[in-house]
């Protein structure tokens, strides 16, 4: 499989009255066609900005400071808004967290999907557009599509709205779909339905999915590969198995350990102490060091590079350096279930 998307050393800064803040810092990863990459991180870790910067949907006070975005080996970093319009929807597509607000409340669902269908094939006949819309609605699991064509978003429940948003996003068979916390605002039972739907559609259309979430449970269900972000950097990236069963970065350890699902009842839950640093005021060296039990002296001075663990598994921690003391991962995998 080839890489359809390759990000090299991407940095995104935000300007504000109080100065610059580095929200994404030197992120590199690649995406193969048809695979699902989950980006996990806490709020403020820059995961959502990362996706938006690839789509070029950043707000005006943000800009790509450096780095390259290669789409099918073509550098799109300096693409203009007009160039991007051609890519969006047809090659790159995106769905968002809140299905309530991500649909226009005054236009019927059917028309909003039709708009996406017609956008890249403007000569399509009316009837064809409509049948395509209904086909799409059925694909995303909206029953009685024909009757529901003329309904407005407020007539729909949260899950149905997210399905509609998904129908809009896949209308042009995009090669890559960015899903920005698409299930966070949904109930658990609906969440599962949407996840499974996403997986089915991905298989049918063969698209790659970049799934952004903070929920490791969701990641386990959907991801082929996982990237863990902290303070704008990818601190660890690898296949789902590698991240879940053999994590190397202390932050990943912390995340896993602090999950109540892994904890023993009655025992104190492991916590990562402190709070994430603000992106405008990052500490020197490794941003995670002040909260890291396993921080080395060098962590406070120098940013760790990406160490290779295996061909697919990389982690940015000095613990992997040959000179570092050997630390036993504190995550015990036999604890769950």
């Amino acid at each position, binding site marked *: 499989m080839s890489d359809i998307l390759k990000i090299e050393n991407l940095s995104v800064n935000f300007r504000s009255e109080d100065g610059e803040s580095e929200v994404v810092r030197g992120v590199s990863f690649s995406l193969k066609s048809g695979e699902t990459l989950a980006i996990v991180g806490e709020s403020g870790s820059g995961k959502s900005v990362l996706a938006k910067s690839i789509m070029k949907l950043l707000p005006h006070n943000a800009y790509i400071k450096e780095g390259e975005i290669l789409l099918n080996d073509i550098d799109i970093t300096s693409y203009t808004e007009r160039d991007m319009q051609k890519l969006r929807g047809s090659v790159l597509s995106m769905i968002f967290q809140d299905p309530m607000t991500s649909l226009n409340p005054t236009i019927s669902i059917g028309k909003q999907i039709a708009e996406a269908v017609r956008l890249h094939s403007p000569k399509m006949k009316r009837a064809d557009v409509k049948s395509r819309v209904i086909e799409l609605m059925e694909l995303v699991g909206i029953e009685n599509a024909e009757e529901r064509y003329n309904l407005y978003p407020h007539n729909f429940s949260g899950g149905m709205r997210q399905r509609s948003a998904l129908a809009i996003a896949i209308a042009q068979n995009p090669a890559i779909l960015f899903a920005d916390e698409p299930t966070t605002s949904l109930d658990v039972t609906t969440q599962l339905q949407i996840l499974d739907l996403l997986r089915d559609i991905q298989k049918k259309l063969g698209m790659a999915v970049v799934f952004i979430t903070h929920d490791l449970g969701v990641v386990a269900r959907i991801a082929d590969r996982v990237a863990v972000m902290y303070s704008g950097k990818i601190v660890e990236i690898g296949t789902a198995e590698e991240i879940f069963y053999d994590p190397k970065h202390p932050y990943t350890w912390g995340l896993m350990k602090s999950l*109540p*699902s892994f904890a023993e009842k009655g025992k104190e839950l492991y916590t990562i*102490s402190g709070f994430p640093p603000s992106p405008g005021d990052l500490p020197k060296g490794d941003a995670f060091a002040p909260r890291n039990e396993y921080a080395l002296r060098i962590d406070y001075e120098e940013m760790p590079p990406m160490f290779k663990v295996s061909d697919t598994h990389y982690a940015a921690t000095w613990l992997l350096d040959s000179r570092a003391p050997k630390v036993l991962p504190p995550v015990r995998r036999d604890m769950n279930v």
Partner: protein
Amino acid sequence: MSEIILDVRNLTHHFGIGKKLSVKALDNVSFAVKKGEIFGLVGESGSGKSTVARCVMNILKPTSGEIFCEGINVLNPKEFKKNKKQLEASRQLIFQDSASSLNGRMTVREIVSEPMKIHKVKPPRGTFDAEAEFQLFYVGLDKSLLDKYPTELSGGMRQRVAIARALTMEPRLLVADEPISSLDVSVQAQIINLFAHLRCEHNCSILFIAHDLSVVRYLCDRVGVMCKGKLVELAPVEKLFASPRHPYTKALLSSIPIPDPRLERERVMEKFDYDPKLLSGKLREVSEEHFVLWGDEE
């Protein structure tokens, strides 16, 4: 059986929409919280779990039913008035969104000492400042935050300030309405620990409302599952997770994602069809302390 601190009996609440329609937000909900236990109330959005919290706190007046808080019928206006002061001190509420439950124009110092000032309590540690400082320390915050405004704090810090405010009155019952669902994983864990701590050290009973079942499983002693305003199952947490009886509970439990790729990918979700039949009937005891809503005909 140990002492019961909160007893909710046949609580029913209807929300009117328009002139004719009304929605049953709560339908005949009964449960009890024992002293020193953490009682979890779970359900999806719209299941009425927050309405329960608001009724318990006398924010909403339910259509019918009774709520006894340490033996005081809080829905009886006379009794409520007589014991208002005591109730206001012994029950405390923690909201989901700490950003909006703290007044943005008050400093942390003012926020934390407000309940004491309202109740004209003499601070146990001398001054209001000393007390505020102590409570902040207790919830794991630095005293340098005393003069900050809520907007300057992160979500986790704010939620701790809200808890510190509740603790100043040394409550015997803490009602926590989704206190951790807007927080990040690493901060969530800190707050969960804080709740566990409170129960152990203060012998505080907690009505813990949540939608995240893994948290409930870790933290709570007994759990009530709510669906569309009905309490469908009520059991000690181990029993509920080991042998759920109601189809809705089964569906809900099966939809918790497990953070383990191999297990999670294979897992199939239990289906639950909303059948009014399944949501009618009475709570019946199926085994010790395990109650399930069971239709009459079965």
